């Protein structure tokens, strides 16, 4: 059976499973549609939260982001700590109290606690901006995974994914989504850990990748640690050491904090804790969620570092026992004849890997070009392009002269730029020949690099789809419940019957799926930037407002609204200053480079400061205005004690 048929079978089987669950878990009431009837056991909710939380980015990209970061893998630990530490904040500061409150949406709590339809509306706006920006990436992830593994176009993949989410989300609401997510979690975690175990066994002899990360490098006899080997190999090739310190510790601190409080403020994560039966379940469920998330997040740095080492030693066979340059680089003949290396050509076709034998020696030299060489290479490429683009009747002489000049500068740079103590000219290199290594290949090609059986490759395809679909469904539920429950029932038509609210919830879900699919097909140019916006806004608006609503009796309506708006505007403006107004390219006021950031704070890290702005503004405004009324103080006192948490009420 060929790989394609196998992929189709495994992915088809998982889809049949999801649809089967959806039919079994149909929602009959709004309580089931919004909060799965508050009957989800905490362990199961933890598993569903894990699938909800771990997106296409976590599954496909994160290990590669860590592995290939130019400043080294250590600095990217911000993702690992940030995307897990947020659950501590959720368990300690938000989840149990919001479960005691016992209603269905985040804006509903903000509206009741701050006795204001206006506050609820601001929260709805923040929620929709956060969730819509987030869902675009998931829909793209679905399309891209389909196109890579199932030989359909990205657009067709998107339609299939959209249709599948439609079936189980519209039919089952939170109930259908929850039980599907449990199944999706199982698929994705097996798909992630099986290749990781194999690569860990090969490189370190450790069955557990977490131990392999700190283990010793087995192929050279186990005398050096895996990380020390990785450091020595990549520094020899001109890259920064994998474990080197962060060049900007202050920014790494703020970035980690932004991801943590952003995680705790993401509405689609918070609403998962409305589904458990009791307040104490909300606390332990956050712990279970983190256990299931940690199964992937503690493996990811092992996958990243080992895949990087594996990739480097594949192209520099001498690096396994000695130094990289002690033996010739991998030859093209070897790539084409050795069946264990067929993955290189496979992934070259998808453009995740690109090669160019610049010096024509039949070998592929992979290294980090010294800056003089890289700069001179860019000038030379531009000169060549100018000639190629010139009109047929144009005067070519000056363009040709420019190329000769650029070529001379490039040759000079080759004698100047060094790898170790030898110049590139002495080594006979004309530049890095593995011209592109996409982050995603670290996970996607892992089973092939480790020469694992075809079913493991098919499983990775199913796992990537499960990760993207489960997160998309959770986000779509957060969006549709904000529309049907907070907008339609909350302000437009409060007298709506249970039955028609359920119908509206389904209509809103359908609308959200159509919008998300459309945005996936026509992604706004800023798709890559939006995660910064989603986390920044969640950190600066939802998290501080919820926290103050629970822990302070003095923060009032005026303070909460002013705080949310201040956090929203401050964070969005800071991001827009560097990324362009509403992400329109070219409208940025400052170039998005580290030396331009105020106090070295990157736009990705600004959510922490935005949260501080929210806290301070809310406090100052509240102190200057009237204290909240008595019934609100009663509400706060009631959510602080677990006793009396019943089923959620829709009123």
């Amino acid at each position, binding site marked *: 059976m060929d790989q394609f048929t196998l992929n189709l079978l495994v992915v088809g089987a998982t889809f049949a499973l999801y649809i089967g669950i959806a039919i079994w878990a149909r929602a009959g009431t709004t309580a089931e549609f919004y909060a799965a009837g508050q009957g989800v056991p905490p362990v199961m909710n933890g598993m569903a939260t894990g699938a909800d939380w771990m997106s296409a980015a976590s599954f496909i990209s994160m290990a590669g982001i860590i592995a290939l970061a130019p400043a080294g893998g250590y600095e990217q630990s911000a993702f690992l700590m940030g995307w897990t530490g947020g659950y501590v904040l959720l*368990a*300690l500061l938000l989840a149990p109290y919001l479960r005691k409150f016992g209603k269905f949406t985040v804006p509903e709590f903000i509206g009741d606690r701050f006795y204001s339809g206006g506050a609820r509306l601001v929260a709805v706006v923040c929620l929709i901006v956060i969730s819509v920006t987030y869902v675009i990436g998931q829909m793209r992830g679905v399309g891209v995974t389909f196109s890579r593994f199932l030989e359909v176009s990205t657009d067709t993949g998107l339609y299939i994914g959209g249709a599948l989410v439609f079936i189980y989300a519209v039919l089952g609401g939170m109930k259908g989504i929850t039980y599907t997510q449990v199944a999706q979690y199982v698929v994705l975690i097996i798909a992630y850990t099986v290749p990781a175990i194999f690569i860990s066994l090969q490189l370190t002899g450790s069955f557990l990748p977490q131990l392999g990360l700190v283990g010793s490098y087995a192929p050279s006899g186990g005398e050096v640690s895996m990380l020390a080997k990785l450091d020595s190999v990549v520094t020899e090739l001109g890259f920064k050491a994998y474990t080197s310190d962060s060049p900007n510790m202050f920014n790494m601190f703020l970035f980690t904090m932004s991801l943590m409080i952003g995680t705790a403020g993401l509405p689609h994560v918070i609403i998962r804790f409305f589904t458990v039966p009791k307040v104490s379940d909300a606390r332990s469920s956050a712990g279970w969620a983190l256990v299931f998330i940690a199964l992937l997040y503690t493996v990811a740095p092992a996958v990243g570092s080992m895949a990087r080492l594996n990739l480097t030693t594949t192209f520099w066979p001498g690096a396994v026992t000695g130094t990289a340059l002690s033996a010739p680089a991998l030859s093209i003949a070897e790539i084409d004849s050795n069946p264990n290396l067929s993955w290189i050509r496979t992934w070259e076709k998808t453009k995740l890997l690109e090669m160019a034998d610049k010096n024509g020696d039949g070998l592929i030299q992979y290294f980090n070009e010294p800056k003089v060489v890289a700069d001179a290479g860019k000038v030379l490429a531009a000169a060549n392009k100018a000639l190629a683009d010139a009109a047929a009747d144009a005067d070519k002489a000056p363009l040709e002269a420019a190329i000769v000049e650029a070529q001379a500068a490039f040759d000079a740079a080759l004698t100047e730029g060094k790898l170790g103590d030898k110049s590139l000219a002495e080594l006979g290199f004309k530049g890095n020949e593995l011209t592109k290594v996409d982050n995603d290949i670290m996970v996607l090609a892992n089973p092939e690099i480790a020469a694992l059986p075809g079913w493991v490759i098919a499983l990775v395809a199913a796992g990537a789809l499960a990760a993207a679909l489960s997160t998309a469904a959770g986000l779509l539920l957060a969006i549709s419940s904000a529309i049907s429950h907070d907008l339609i029932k909350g302000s437009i038509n409060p007298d709506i019957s249970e039955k028609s609210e359920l119908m509206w919830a389904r209509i809103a879900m359908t609308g959200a799926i159509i919008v998300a699919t459309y945005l996936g097909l026509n992604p706004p140019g800023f798709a890559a930037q939006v995660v910064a916006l989603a986390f920044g806004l969640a950190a600066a608006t939802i998290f501080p407002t919820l926290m103050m609503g629970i822990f302070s009796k003095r923060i009032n309506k005026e303070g909460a609204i002013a705080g949310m708006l201040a956090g929203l505007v401050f964070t969005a403006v800071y991001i827009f200053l560097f990324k362009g107004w509403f992400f329109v390219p070219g409208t940025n006021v400052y170039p998005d480079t580290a030396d331009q950031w105020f106090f070295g704070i990157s736009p990705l890290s600004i959510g922490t400061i935005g949260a501080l702005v929210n806290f301070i503004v809310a406090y100052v405004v509240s102190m200057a205005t009237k204290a909240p009324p008595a019934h609100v103080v009663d509400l706060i006192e009631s959510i602080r004690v677990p006793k009396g948490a019943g089923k959620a009420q829709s009123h």
Partner: protein
Amino acid sequence: MADKSSANAYWAANVRIILISLAIWFVSSFGLGILLRPALKGIMVGGADLGFWFAQNGSIYIFIVLIFVYAWMMGKIDAEHGVEE
């Protein structure tokens, strides 16, 4: 909830546990994983220095233990103050 003072005592006990937990949360990630890493380079966890290991694995284990210990302690305090479900 019997009376106001017992409610306040329950809340004060909860806030105390939260503050202790947050201190551990902060030290294990921001402290050992980021700020103190350069100072602790000499201490190794297998093949990684202590700060690197805390940043990539250790802090996550601490987070898990922290949440379960918090849930367990709060369960006890709920019962002591008679506010359990």
